[in-house]
């Protein structure tokens, strides 16, 4: 007896050692994944990509919000996605969530493969986790799908553990679990049903039960989907068959996801069948073999790590990250970083929206009047006045932001409401709408948006602060941003309807506030880009209103050209181009005249000295 107890104790010890190494390996794997998510991927960029997406509902705490997800099957999964996605806003919390999802996928699969007695399960269980990491690696959001898969697998494990041998009871348990799952996760409940059917039909050898359960699953879909929730019968079934991938999910992510579902089903089926058919060894040594098991686990982990590393390495596309970083910097008003990013990645300048953000960045860093022509320019990018993009969410967002900064609050209001209706109650939209209404003096309306925004766990802080400020100082005199917005916002009702990006548009803004620096600089930038040097000369007197003490470089160059073109031009004495500037201009024109017939050569010769000048743009644009 003592010997048996001793042996048992030794076995337990060996098992504990094996488990310890497995847990250690597993911990190391997910710790590395966390660091990779944090440092290499930057999960917060996924938030930047999918913020404003109409398929994701911005999360709000409270029962009222939850209740809105009870109207159709599968909406609870949207609620879970909404909850998880909010944490992506911050890189650390987002990486924690991503790793937790990957870990849950690992644990759920591991448990399932354990109940199916799958060999090599330690390696296979890593596969869904790696697949999820891959989708993050290409900046795709598959929280919805993987959460659905995890829940389905967990329910399957639960069923296999609790289902008794008594058939009616196990059918009853299946019915309850499937009905709840169909309501919760709609499309993914089929995964649960298939796993249970495999279990019942193969290792449990209860084909009749499996068939009954399949029929019950169909009945539940008809009952809940069609009869209770009013979904057309075809749709209720089709949703399940197609797994309802989100329309924007990239094919790679969808295929990887399907492959994972297939792998789990296949492993369950094959090993279920193998266990059923394989004869049981008579003297099976069930004692744990510490060394072999530990080595096997180590090998499996190593293979998983290698596959993961290779897959992540080859699927990572740095340009995706750069594009999203530019979006992030623009939203966070990180202007220096945005300019630096553009310098390091010149290919970004071919994108209209990047050029637009870049011009904003130049303004905010006081470099618009001296460095505009250092970078590729497009007049369309200035205020995004291109019809092709004007129905896009990105347009609504960026046009709304620039209009607000310029003081055209009604323009921002239109764009923000298009986003609010089309995309949902995203914090950045709510913030804009609150600011617009504060600028317009409609504080009560602003407070509705602020109250809504203040419910956001991560982004509600500023709203809560403003609400507190309103309580203490209803006029918000101490809030610099609001004070500035109010000083530039055109809100007078006697103004006629104005067209965005017309000359009048800037004049209205400057009439409201002649010190509206951004309106002035954008108006001048537009004139420069249009090569309208006359307009520059006409408006140069405004430098006095704005407190300039020095004529900015590009205006001076434009005035040099204007004085060459129009001898009668009347420029205030204070703002006449300097003799040095005139000399420089003449030098440019003389060199240009030499190579006039060969423009390419003229460009080559003039680039080193004048490449970033207005002269160069004027002649070679």
């Amino acid at each position, binding site marked *: 007896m003592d010997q048996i107890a001793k042996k048992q104790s030794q076995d337990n010890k060996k098992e504990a050692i094996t488990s310890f190494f497995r847990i250690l390996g597993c911990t190391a794997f997910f710790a590395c994944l966390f660091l990779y998510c944090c440092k290499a991927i930057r999960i917060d960029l996924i938030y930047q990509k999918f913020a404003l997406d109409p398929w994701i509902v911005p999360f709000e705490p409270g029962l*009222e919000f939850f209740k809105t997800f009870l109207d159709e099957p599968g909406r609870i999964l949207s609620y879970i996605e909404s909850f998880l996605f909010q944490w992506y806003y911050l890189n650390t919390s987002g990486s924690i969530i991503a790793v937790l999802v990957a870990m849950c996928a690992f644990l759920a699969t591991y448990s399932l493969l354990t109940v199916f007695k799958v060999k090599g399960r330690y390696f296979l269980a890593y596969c869904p986790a790696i697949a999820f990491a891959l989708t993050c690696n290409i900046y795709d959001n598959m929280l919805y799908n993987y959460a659905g898969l995890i829940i389905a697998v967990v329910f399957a494990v639960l069923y296999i553990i609790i289902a008794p041998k008594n058939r009616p009871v196990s059918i009853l348990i299946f019915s309850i679990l499937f009905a709840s799952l169909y309501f919760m996760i709609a499309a993914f409940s089929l995964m649960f049903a298939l796993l249970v059917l495999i279990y019942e039909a193969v290792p449990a050898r209860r084909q009749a039960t499996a068939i009954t359960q399949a029929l019950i699953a169909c009945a539940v879909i008809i009952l809940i989907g069609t009869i209770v929730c009013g979904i057309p019968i075809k749709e209720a079934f089709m949703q399940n068959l197609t797994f309802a991938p989100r329309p924007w999910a990239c094919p790679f992510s969808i295929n990887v996801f399907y492959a994972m579902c297939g792998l789990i089903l296949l492993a369950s089926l094959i090993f279920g069948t193998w266990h059923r058919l394989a004869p049981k060894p008579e003297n099976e040594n069930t004692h744990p073999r510490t060394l072999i098991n530990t080595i096997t686990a180590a090998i499996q982990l190593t293979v998983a790590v290698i596959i993961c590393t290779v897959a992540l390495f080859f699927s990572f596309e740095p340009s995706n990250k750069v594009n999203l970083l530019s979006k992030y910097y623009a939203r966070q008003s990180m202007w220096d970083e945005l300019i630096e990013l553009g310098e390091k990645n010149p290919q970004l300048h071919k994108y209209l929206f990047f050029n637009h953000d870049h011009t904003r960045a130049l303004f905010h860093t006081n470099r618009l009047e001296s460095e505009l022509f250092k970078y590729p320019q497009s007049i369309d990018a200035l205020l995004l006045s291109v019809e092709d993009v004007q129905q896009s969410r990105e347009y609504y967002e960026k046009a709304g932001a620039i209009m607000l900064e310029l003081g055209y609050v009604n323009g921002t209001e*239109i764009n923000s409401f*298009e986003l609010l209706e089309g995309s949902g109650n995203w914090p950045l939209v709510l913030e804009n709408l609150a600011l617009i209404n504060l600028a317009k003096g409609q504080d*009560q309306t602003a407070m*509705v948006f602020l109250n809504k925004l203040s419910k956001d766990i991560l982004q509600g802080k500023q709203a809560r602060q403003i609400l507190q400020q309103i309580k203490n100082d209803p006029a918000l005199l101490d809030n610099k941003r609001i004070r500035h917005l109010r000083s530039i916002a055109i809100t007078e009702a006697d103004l006629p309807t*104005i067209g965005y990006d017309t000359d009048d548009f800037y004049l*209205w803004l400057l009439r409201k506030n002649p010190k509206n620096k951004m309106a002035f600089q954008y108006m001048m930038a537009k004139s420069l880009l249009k090569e309208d040097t006359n307009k520059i000369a006409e408006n140069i007197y405004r430098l006095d209103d704005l407190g300039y003490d020095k004529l900015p470089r590009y205006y001076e160059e434009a005035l040099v050209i204007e004085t060459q073109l129009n001898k009668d031009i009347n420029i205030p004495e204070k703002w006449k181009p300097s003799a040095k500037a005139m000399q420089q201009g003449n030098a440019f024109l003389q060199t240009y005249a030499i190579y006039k017939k060969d423009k390419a050569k003229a460009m080559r010769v003039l680039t080193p000295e004048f490449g970033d000048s207005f002269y160069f743009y004027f002649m070679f644009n």
Partner: protein
Amino acid sequence: MTVIHHFKIIISVIMVILILTCSAAAAENNSGFDRQAKIRPDYTSTVIPPNIAPLNFTILEDAKSYRVKVYSQTDKDGFEIASNTREIKIPEKKWKTLLNDAAGRNIFFDISIKDDNGNWKNFKTTPNQVAPEPIDGYLAYRFIKPIFNNWENVEIRQRNIETFKDDQIIHGKKIGRGCVNCHTFLNNETQQMAIGFRSKKGVGTFLSINGELQKVDAKWGYTSWHPSGKLAIYSVNKVRQFFHGVSTEVRDVVDLDSAIAYYNVQEQQAHTAPELSDINSQETYPTWTPDGKWLYFCAAPVLWQDRDKMPPKEYDQVKYDLKKISYDIETDTWGKPETVLEAKDTGKSILLPRVTPDGKFLVFSMCDYGCFPVFSPSSDLYIMDLRTGKWENMGNQINSQYSESWHSFSSNGKWMAFSSKRRGGLFTRTFFCYLDDNGEPSKPFILPQEDPLRYDSMLQTFSVPELIKGPVIVSPRQITKTILAEEKIKVNMPLTGATPKVDSAQPWQQVRE
């Protein structure tokens, strides 16, 4: 002696304690405020129906905890609510019992707060009057965010005014990202109703007539059922939306053209009359008198030659007159239009006429110009005594600096529901007021919500509030099914309301060709 002496001492001590206690209590009672507590929504000195849901509110006073005693003239004990938060949620059962008994009398809120030192302080009593007449039990309304060009979620819902139950009548998503609007009921009943829709699946009007569900292949604009139920009259509008570069309300709407047509339920055909579709005039907002013998409507001359240009230069010059025309339903004959009130006399555009169920008054809205009062902050509600023709502004309690519009009456004519943007200028909310025999309105109150803070962060508006006696009996699924069905009643329209489907660049636009 000693015993008596001791007894005297004991009595004296007890007396002293009692006096001290009483004076302490008196002091506590006296340590109150000489004003009413600030509460939101403002449920003070209003007239409320005896069947209204609990008037849950927030106390806008800083305190550690709150206490509200609710009682009436008939039940002075009432009941008490204690709360550690500002939100006061009144128990539904107790409220109902109290209110039923208080019909025609007053109810009171005694509000007290506990300060940081643990002392309770009372505010002056907040009274409200309970009218003897109930309000219709339900409110049908359009639930949407402030929409500009695009829409995603357009819903028509119904709220049980006696409780907080709120159900969907139809959701635009169910008919393919559609728009649903112009819900109209016959005599406040839901047996006969109409809902306009526009979606990928088509454009038309859903009808429910005594359980029979139909789809008419024509979009009805502003609609009014003839009291007999035999016909519905509606406007056909060439509506265009545009935006203001400046001003409080960004959106504006102009009818480039409009006319009035009517649909005969039995014939399943549409007609018009020359008096209702003058080419030089825009007719809109038709509404019947309760006897069905007169139709009130609004009309304005067409000021532009080009009926497509947007916005027309004279958009802010258009002002509608109020007109009426007689009608004989037996012979289907129309009289000659008469002008009831001219815009040139009022200086404003007269819109949205509705006659009270007793036929005594007509309530309408007036704004500076145009056809769409909801987007005009200048829009106010006015009342006209139809016996004398005298009209007047409904007063500062009904009207605010923002838009008031879209009114409807309860079937007994004692309650008016209307839309107001008084809470900031953007979000439309539903308010109710009591109308006495002289058409004098009481101070309005907002539709109560279970969560008294709900309006403070709600981004949807409550639009076109229509009071109805009971719930809509047709389920959302039945309505959806009817709209999506291929079957439809084809009508030979004298005017076509050819509305672009939602996929067009400007899906909200409605075109009369």
